[in-house]
């Protein structure tokens, strides 16, 4: 890789990048020999010759991509096309809050203080894919919400790939800083518009200060040639509340690494997911909650429905440090297999060093309840629709905490579409 030829050696974070590339060169892509990658192979992806710096800028018409936005409501938009910022499709702001670009934040003096304090501070410095991103990333979303502020509307971060390269590697880098008692709602989506190969290796750092509230919704419904590795790192201070919802309905290979670090007391960390897969799709949810201080809570609730030859992984790691007494950590992973060829590997990983804690985990893998199916059919609802209704009901309690009604309606439509039914009403 002609790294030095393509980067600005005078760049303020150049040293950080050099350390990162060194780490990646030593470690390389993770292999299935590593415990954390046992069920997800990157072999086929590594064989592809990806372009890492797209040659030309591509423009998209809003009308062609409108359906990927939550267009029913007004939102701030940070939009990238083939990794390059699209000012035409975006709506950023500096009105009391900063909702703009990582490239600007990394280079302009006015952001230097925030970058010095937060950039690459919670992201791993030895996990190879994260360091690959740190080395090569140029662009992404920069969101800074000062104390006591809340943006007037939700923020959408969209990454489109147009397929003008035969295969493209995108490495977006997001920094989200939410100061004391501030609040933000973010919707994130990666969308390929062609059948050319695309791999996205994204890193997002989130810092939630005292009493901050962060809602992040990840919509993963990409085409069969698009893969995503999402590395999200969350640093939480006292009384902050961070919720991440992950809706995985498509893509070739999706790996979600969500890492929460509770650096304070009375923190609430919540991760919820609905995964509905078919064909040969693969989704791997790897979560980590590190309870570092006492009196905190974490809640995880992942529901999965696997059809055709799809495969899923759930690996939920909870670490409770010795001083983190009065921790409440809950984890649930329920799965339904609707095809004999589909499979799921579900594994809780609890490392508890404190003695006064409440931790629970539960994992189920099953089929649809026959009695429930008969109940619906006996009311005249055909088997296919009855199955869809039951699957919807199964996933429903994950949706109940989605706080943007239009987003919830959109997710419901995606679920109905994914289940292949029209029930005559909006779910």
């Amino acid at each position: 890789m002609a790294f030095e030829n393509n980067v600005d050696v005078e760049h303020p974070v150049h040293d950080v990048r050099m350390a990162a590339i060194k780490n990646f060169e030593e470690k390389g892509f993770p292999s299935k020999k590593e415990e954390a990658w046992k069920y997800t192979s990157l072999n086929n992806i590594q064989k592809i010759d990806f372009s890492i710096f797209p040659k030309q800028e591509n423009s998209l018409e809003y009308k062609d991509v409108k359906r990927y936005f939550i267009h029913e409501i007004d939102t701030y938009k940070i939009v990238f096309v083939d990794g390059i910022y699209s000012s035409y499709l975006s709506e950023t702001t500096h009105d009391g809050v900063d909702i703009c670009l990582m490239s600007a934040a990394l280079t302009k003096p006015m952001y230097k203080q925030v970058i010095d304090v937060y950039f690459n501070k919670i992201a791993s410095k030895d996990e190879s894919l994260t360091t690959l991103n740190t080395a090569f990333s140029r662009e992404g979303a920069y969101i800074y919400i000062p104390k006591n502020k809340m943006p007037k509307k939700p923020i959408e971060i969209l990454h489109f790939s147009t397929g003008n390269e035969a295969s493209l590697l995108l490495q977006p880098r997001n920094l989200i800083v939410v100061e004391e008692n501030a609040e933000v709602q973010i919707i994130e989506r990666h969308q390929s518009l062609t059948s050319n190969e695309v791999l996205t290796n994204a890193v997002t750092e989130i810092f939630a200060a005292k009493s901050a509230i962060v809602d992040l919704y990840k919509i993963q419904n990409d085409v069969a040639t698009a893969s995503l590795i999402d590395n999200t790192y969350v640093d939480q201070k006292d009384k902050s509340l961070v919720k991440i919802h992950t809706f995985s309905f498509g893509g070739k290979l999706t790996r979600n690494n969500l890492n929460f670090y509770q650096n304070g007391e009375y923190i609430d960390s919540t991760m919820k997911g609905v995964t509905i897969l078919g064909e040969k799709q693969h989704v791997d949810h790897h979560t980590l909650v590190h309870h570092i201080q006492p009196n905190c809570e974490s809640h995880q609730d992942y529901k999965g429905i696997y059809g055709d030859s799809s495969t899923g992984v759930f690996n939920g790691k909870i670490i409770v440090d010795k001083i983190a007494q009065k921790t409440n950590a809950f984890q649930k992973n329920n799965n339904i297999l609707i095809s004999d060829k589909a499979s799921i590997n579900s594994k809780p990983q609890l490392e508890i060093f404190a003695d006064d804690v409440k931790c629970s985990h539960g994992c189920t893998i099953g089929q649809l309840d026959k009695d429930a199916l008969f109940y619906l059919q006996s009311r005249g609802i055909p088997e296919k629709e009855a199955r869809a209704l039951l699957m919807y009901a199964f996933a429903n309690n994950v949706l109940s905490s989605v706080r943007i009604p239009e987003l919830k309606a959109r997710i419901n439509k995606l679920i109905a579409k994914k289940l292949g039914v029209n029930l005559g009403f909006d779910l």
Partner: protein
Amino acid sequence: MLKIKDLHANVEGKEILRGINLEVKAGEVHAIMGPNGSGKSTLASVIAGNDNFEVTQGSVELEGEDLEDVSPEERAHKGVFLSFQYPVEIPGVSVTNFMKTAINESRKAKGLEDMPAKDMLKLIREKSELLEIDRKFLSRSLNEGFSGGEKKRNEIFQMAMLEPKVAILDETDSGLDIDALRIVASGVNKLKSKDNAVILITHYQRLLEYIVPDFVHVLHNGKIVKSGGKELALELEEKGYDWLKQETAV
């Protein structure tokens, strides 16, 4: 209307129904009574087409048509209704949306357009008043967090909405307090006509004070061992089921 001939049915290889014969004509109310485990709920499930049960012999006919190989949803479209003893909870789907889906699926099967929203609302209003169901109740998720009584009342509301030809009420009286029982019974009585039929499955005579049957059948070990008029229910209430077991043993 409904004709059951020499019906045998198994569940997991075990024979539960061992030759049931029963004819229910339009306008009639039949009560099927019997001790626990006698096969009452199995009979109800088999009529409604539950394929967890295997019919090994005999037949069920609705208006002259053999229902063998007819799916539960098609039976519903043809006018069979089963009020469940344990209705299933469907989180996220409101009572109203559930009924819309059920009614429109039935109309679709008959080649009809969806019911216009205005007519649907009117129908829902009429039928919910009949069962003294509060409006707010209709926007709640189906059966989720409902009390036992609410679930049963909701079953009869669904029956009122779907207007079946043959309604089988499986232990609708269990878990109902006396006020709820009166409302449910009065609803069923108002829905009764010369063109439809009701089969009441019950352990106790209590419900039959409110919905008066034309015939009472006693089920024991998968067979109807005695049939009679409404006075048979009183006799059973007085003497219990042991008396009957002895009589059939002789």
